[in-house]
């Protein structure tokens, strides 16, 4: 099944949308005479009224609702958090789908009964009407059998669509949906796929520009007007462009305001918590605060110690550093020098602060973020590294198991004290608070 799912729910959508967009563009540009609503009202009027009006009013409202849920799921959910609204939306959805079914039935009936309409009916017309009938019937079936679709879709199909849109297809939300829902989704992609090959292309022709257009439309064929009366010509043209630009701006702004309105709406009308939920929320917040504070306490405790253990001297080596956390809560690395003494170096890259890797190759450690090599002996970065300042060395103290200081190094200057072979085996490396100051 996953292979099928992948094909129908991931490959098909991309295929359908690309073919729909490219195909429609190609058809509109190269075969403009086929770009028409192909009205058959002239040949048969009454049946069309009973079919086309209910069908279009129903389907356009339903598609608009699908779009709103997809575009502003937050707002949609907030709206539906109100029981009455939810009930209304569910009832309206079902009612509209029945309206669509009625319309489709009337449209099909007239396609089959009117001889005149038949003479302009293509096979594709019938395919489209039948697929639409199936699709709307599935929708109505889902509305009845799996109620509250308006709500559950926000957590299932909407994230699925967004995952497709963001090119990170994720089927986890829809995989386990009932077959009817999956079929509804797949048929939607099939319909989109059909657009350039059928009369469905008329959807792109919605003449919104009519709202703002001046009544009259004058077209100048020659350049004469432009040359002889540039003022009048430019004014006329400017008006046409202004109307077009204005419409685009209004469309953009309304999209924007839907987004803003979403926030405002949720602020004022968003879900109200019950006392129970509110308590739960506060408890969660409290437990998070507690966790933070206990961590903070631990950090402080650590910082108050005079010494912090890094590890035993024996476990250190010169190739692979041991990570530890210093007094400033920053990462650092512990190596062993050729003389068998500890070498502690900050692991916080001096470029942008990534943690430097622990492997020393030829005595150099690498910050993987932007490839800075640092010498562990001197702390100096390579000449061509993005990091320019050296990693500082840290001071350390060697102690025996009973806590007697054997050798110490303050980070600068010379190493104080010596170490016998016997002590070497059991010595432990610490960093000292004393070395931090300054």
């Amino acid at each position: 099944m996953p292979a099928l799912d992948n094909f129908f729910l991931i490959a098909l959508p991309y295929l359908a949308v690309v073919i729909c967009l490219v195909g429609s563009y190609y058809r509109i540009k190269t075969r403009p005479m086929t770009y028409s609503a192909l009205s058959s009202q002239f040949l048969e009027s009454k049946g069309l009224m009973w079919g086309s009006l209910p069908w279009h009013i129903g389907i356009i409202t339903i598609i608009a609702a699908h779009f709103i849920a997809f575009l502003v799921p937050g707002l949609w959910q907030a709206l539906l958090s109100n029981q009455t609204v939810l009930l209304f939306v569910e009832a309206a959805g079902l009612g509209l789908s029945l309206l669509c079914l009625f319309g489709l039935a009337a449209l099909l009936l007239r396609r089959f009964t009117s001889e005149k309409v038949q003479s302009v009916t293509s096979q594709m017309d019938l395919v489209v009407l039948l697929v639409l009938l199936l699709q709307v019937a599935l929708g109505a079936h889902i509305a009845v059998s799996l109620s509250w679709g308006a709500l559950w879709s926000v957590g299932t199909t909407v994230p699925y669509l967004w995952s497709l849109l963001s090119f990170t297809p994720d089927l986890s939300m829809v995989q386990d949906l009932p077959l009817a829902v999956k079929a509804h989704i797949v048929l939607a992609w099939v319909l989109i796929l059909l657009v350039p090959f059928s009369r469905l292309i008329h959807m792109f022709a919605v003449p919104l520009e009519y709202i703002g257009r001046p009544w009259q439309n004058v077209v100048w064929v020659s350049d004469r007007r432009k040359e002889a009366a540039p003022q009048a010509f430019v004014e006329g043209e400017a008006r046409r462009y202004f109307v077009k630009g204005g419409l685009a701006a209004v469309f953009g702004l309304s999209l924007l305001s839907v987004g803003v309105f979403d926030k405002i709406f949720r602020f004022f009308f968003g879900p109200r918590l019950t006392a129970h939920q509110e308590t739960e929320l506060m408890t969660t917040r409290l437990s998070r605060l507690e966790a933070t504070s206990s961590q903070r306490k631990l950090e402080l405790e650590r910082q108050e110690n005079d010494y912090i253990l890094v590890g035993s001297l024996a476990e250190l080596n010169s190739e692979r550093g041991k990570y530890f956390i210093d007094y400033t809560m920053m990462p650092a690395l512990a190596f062993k020098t050729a003389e068998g003494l500890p070498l502690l170096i900050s692991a916080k890259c001096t470029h942008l602060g990534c943690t430097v890797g622990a492997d020393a190759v030829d005595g150099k450690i690498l910050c993987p973020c932007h490839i800075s090599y640092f010498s562990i002996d001197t702390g100096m970065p390579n000449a061509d590294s993005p990091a320019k300042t050296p990693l500082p060395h840290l001071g350390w103290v060697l102690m025996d198991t009973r806590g007697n200081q054997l050798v110490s190094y303050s980070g600068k200057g010379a190493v104080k004290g010596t170490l016998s072979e016997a002590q070497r085996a059991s010595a432990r490396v610490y960093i000292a608070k004393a070395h931090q100051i300054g």
Partner: protein
Amino acid sequence: MDVRAQVSMVFHLDKCIGCHTCSIACKNVWTDRAGAEYMWWNNVETKPGTGFPTLWEDQNHYKGGWTWKAKGNGKGRLQLRSQNKFDSFIKLFYNPNQPGLEDYYEPWTYKYQDLFDAPEGDDQPTAIPISQITGEPMDINAGPNWDDDLSGSPLYAENDLNLDALSEEEREQLFEIERLSMMYLPRICNHCANPSCVASCPSGALYKRGEDGIVLIDQEICKGWRACVAACPYKKIYYNWKTGKSEKCILCYPKLETGQIPNCFHSCVGRIRYLGVLLYDADRVAEAMQVPDHALVESQRSVILNPFDQAVIEAAKASGISEEFLYAAQNSPVYKYVMDWKVALPLHIEYRTMPMLFYVPPLLPVMGKLENGIYEHKSEAFFSTLEKSRLPIKFLAKLFAAGNESQVEAAVRKLMAVRYYRRSVDMDDIDVVEISKVMREGKTTPKEADEIYALTAIPTIDQRFVLPPIQREEVIGGGHCSPEACKGCTGLGTPVAIERGP
């Protein structure tokens, strides 16, 4: 002042013999195609009659043209009767005002092949009529000229809406069988200056050409929403059921652009048609159409500009009108009929689209008075005929002057005066005093009467059609653009396939 040129037309109805040659000349060239069989960009109607499509003048039903109601401050707003900007969207899905096939007729042909293929039998094979839409056999019960020549009875004629103006008594008189009278009304698109078809098109596919005012539908932009079919009050836009796009009279612009005369004009047997340029002030059109009905004819004339006026000439040049167009405007036969003589009137100006096709009302049914089988042409009858006219002035006024009888009367009187005057010149059988009385009554002079006579009765083809050079040459010849580069904009482009979508 935004001066625009308009290629406009005059149809002299006294000369129309109702032969339909014009319709055929048009059909053979432009609408002899699948989907367009039922279209008659040019049609000739008998009046009184119901016309084509049936009762097209019934705007309560078809909702064509503009409406205007005077507001308190004297100004109102022109509104499309068929739709506003918002309900136009609902009407995309189903347009309640769109005429259907049954309002025109179902186009048919005959199954001629049967004449050859029919098996041997007792009867002669016949070619039965078949529908050009379904290809199935059909009964013919309507046609584009079903009530031509009154169809032998007043059955159809009685339904003519323009008879509403008449009283019951007048109607009875009109339909007295011995008196029954009729006239022909050839109609093409009026290429209106305030076209409601253009205003109604949701896609903006309809446009008026700036240079010559021809109203066209861009077939590539048209989406078949059919708003224009409803909005044109003259029903001169036809929906092509095959291509799913609307079509209309194109005033044979490809012919005009090559210096030829449009088909219906050129072929007209009665030579009733005149074509010439009018200049008008585009800024004032909408305003001029916002006056009460009875003032509309005068208001339209006030927008038409005198091409000899120096100020108009200056303004025309500033608006981009070429010398050649100006010259054509100064020699325009249309200007003479409409503005100088005021005998040509617009059809149904109350639709307020400002039609640019004008009709000289017919005289014969007005003055002809059958007494003992003889038409009355005596001058004593002059002052009484208008009242006694067979086709009531009221009826003509409904057609040509939005009900303003004085406009029609003035035109008819002048035409009659010309007739009496010319008769006296040719036959010398009318008293001079009598003639001068008639001339005064007709508000004309011998000079003007001679001019009217010359342009009406004995014009040459160059006087009837004063064509301006239209822009194709201008665009190509102007040197702005080589023919190759300008193929599209000069109408020479690669044609797109005329095909129906899947």
